[in-house]
């Protein structure tokens, strides 16, 4: 749309969840090719931290969260521009172990039969991946029986570390995370029906100075180009 | 002219001292623990009396119920009984710290014989050398009054005489009030224009 191409540079400030660091850098680079007048600044952190920054009036245009909860919080506080919220990526929950480990787990039910010891899981109260795992386990009536075995981590990365270093035999992470740890392998994929869909929501903040181009960027996340980049990083 | 009238409670007795020092050398003479250092400290401003006044040339240094003049405004040279040299400065820097008159200092250094240790630090010199450095340092400020707390006690006979003579010479030149503490009666008689005896905080003028 050549009409929109003004001489003035526009600035977009995007706060994105940590797990999106690499993929978003890639996507923004692609976006800039077509929109040379838009200067995009990326800020990363845990979804909770990013939301709190927005609550305190940080100059953010777009919020890309790893879970719905913090997005809901912002929405309830009317910190999001109306009708700009949309989901742009999906992920899957998997069980991992150290590479070449002898454990074999095919389904969630296998967890209760085996002598697997401690299980690393994101803290369900604050880490979305942990929350999905908890839901799935509760759905399968396994949660109560396993509570003594859980070690709660502050993020998925810590789960990976525990498994990589062999301190816990298995852990729950996203499918995209396996690509980052090269010492782990996937044992089983969790059935998506056992938990709420794992989707990443995006929204424009109500305090944005450039709501039009912000919305344009959010739309771009749904585009084919963006989708293929997401897929190349393991999102689906 | 230095006028002192002070009362101060000490641990075992109370100090009461009233005396004037015109441009003369007064010797405070008395047993250990009599209160000599306390008098000098009060005049210099390191401690304050409980009552009374201290005046130098009609400027009030201390007056009960008034804010005492701070030490650094009193212009009083003080040789501390324990020297209080600056441990992190060489002898030269110690002396130059408050120096007013460089040629005076050069002369003093050679008279008291500390030229060879100018670059040493206080912990590298002998007790008598420290005392002489402290003496020169106090004189170098060309003060309006001078307090000397046992200034020659760590010196041998000969050095001591030279220092005494230098003090007398400077006093003739400067004509300022000087109070000196010593335990050596011969020295007191030689240097002092007047000797004030003190015992358990009370003065007994000769």
């Amino acid at each position, binding site marked *: 749309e050549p009409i929109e191409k003004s001489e003035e540079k526009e600035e977009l400030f995007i706060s994105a969840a940590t797990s999106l660091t690499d993929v978003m850098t890639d996507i923004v680079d692609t976006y800039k090719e077509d929109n040379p007048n838009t200067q995009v600044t990326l*800020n990363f952190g845990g979804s909770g931290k990013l939301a709190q920054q927005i609550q305190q009036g940080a100059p953010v245009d777009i919020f890309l969260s790893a879970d719905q909860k913090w997005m809901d919080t912002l929405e309830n506080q009317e910190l999001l521009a109306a009708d700009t919220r949309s989901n742009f990526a999906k992920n899957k929950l998997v069980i991992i172990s150290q590479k070449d480990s002898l454990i074999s787990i095919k389904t969630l039910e296998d967890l209760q039969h085996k002598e697997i010891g401690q299980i690393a899981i994101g803290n369900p109260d604050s880490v979305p991946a942990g929350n999905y795992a908890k839901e799935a386990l509760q759905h399968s009536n396994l949660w109560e029986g396993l509570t003594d075995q859980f070690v709660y981590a502050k993020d998925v990365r810590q789960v990976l570390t525990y498994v990589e270093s062999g301190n816990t035999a298995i852990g729950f992470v996203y499918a995209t995370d396996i690509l980052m740890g090269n010492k782990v392998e996937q044992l089983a994929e969790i059935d998506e029906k056992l938990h709420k869909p794992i989707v990443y929501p995006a929204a424009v903040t109500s305090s944005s100075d450039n709501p039009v181009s912000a919305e344009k960027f959010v739309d771009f996340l749904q585009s084919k180009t963006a989708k293929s980049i997401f897929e190349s990083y393991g999102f689906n | 002219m230095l006028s002192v009238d002070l009362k101060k409670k000490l641990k075992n007795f109370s100090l009461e001292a009233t005396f004037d020092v015109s441009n003369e050398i007064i010797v405070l003479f008395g047993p250990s623990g009599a209160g000599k250092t306390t008098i000098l400290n009060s005049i210099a401003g390191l401690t304050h009396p409980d009552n009374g006044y201290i005046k130098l040339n009609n400027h009030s240094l201390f007056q009960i119920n008034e804010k005492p003049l701070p030490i650094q405004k009193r212009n009083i040279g003080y040789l501390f009984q324990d020297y209080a040299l600056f441990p*992190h400065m060489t002898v030269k820097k110690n002396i130059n710290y408050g120096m007013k008159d460089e040629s005076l200092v050069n002369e003093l250094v050679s008279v008291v014989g500390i030229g060879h240790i100018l670059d040493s630090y206080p912990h590298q010199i002998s007790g008598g050398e420290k005392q002489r450095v402290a003496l020169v340092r106090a004189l170098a400020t060309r003060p309006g009054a001078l307090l000397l707390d046992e200034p020659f006690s760590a010196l041998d006979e000969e050095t001591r005489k030279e220092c005494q003579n230098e003090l007398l010479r400077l006093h003739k030149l400067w004509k300022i009030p000087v109070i000196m503490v010593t335990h050596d009666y011969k020295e007191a008689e030689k240097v002092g224009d007047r000797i004030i005896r003190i015992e358990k905080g009370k003065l007994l003028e000769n």
Partner: protein
Amino acid sequence: MNYTPLFLSLKIAGIATCIVFVLGVIFARLIARNNFPGKRILEAILLLPLVLPPTVVGFGLLYLFGKNGPIGSLLLNWFDYQVIFTWVGAVIAAIVVSFPLMYQSAQASFQNYDRNIENAAFTMGASKFKVFWTISFPLAWPGLLAGLVLTFARALGEFGATLMIAGYIPNQTETIPLAIYFAVESGNTDAAVFWVVSIIAIGFSAILWLNWWSGKNILKFTSDK
């Protein structure tokens, strides 16, 4: 490899250290030498940022300096300046978390020498200012140096509060600890190792240099003993 985090970390830790050193020395000096009611309580308050997890400190700072926060709104109205998401925010975070280290060290070191030496300087007509710089400061130096080293190291390693107030904006607020964190997060082990080694090297050489420089310039007088 992009070396921005290196320079950014040095800049932020350097500026924060200078400010903390000056503030710490002034506070310690004023508080150590004056007795007033509530002195102990004030001292304990000054140490609080040490007890709190950095994230909480960061949260507090975010609140204070945020658009609607008491300080943030002032800055915005008066100077049209926003601290959040800038390297200045990182400096503020580093100052707050490392101040207690400097204060506590300085406060101990101003108690630890013979006050009579200062009095001797006063009798020579030196002003309070001169006495402070020429006597008190060098005599307190070993403790001040300890505080300086701790401060720099802590400022350099600061992560939690920085992330909160300055955010992680590549090339703008990306200090080495943040670079390490995100390298680890994205599974980039090589970069993580590189930055860990860098921060160790910087911390190491800064500490060595400080000790060497101070030994050469200030502590000469104790060298013989």
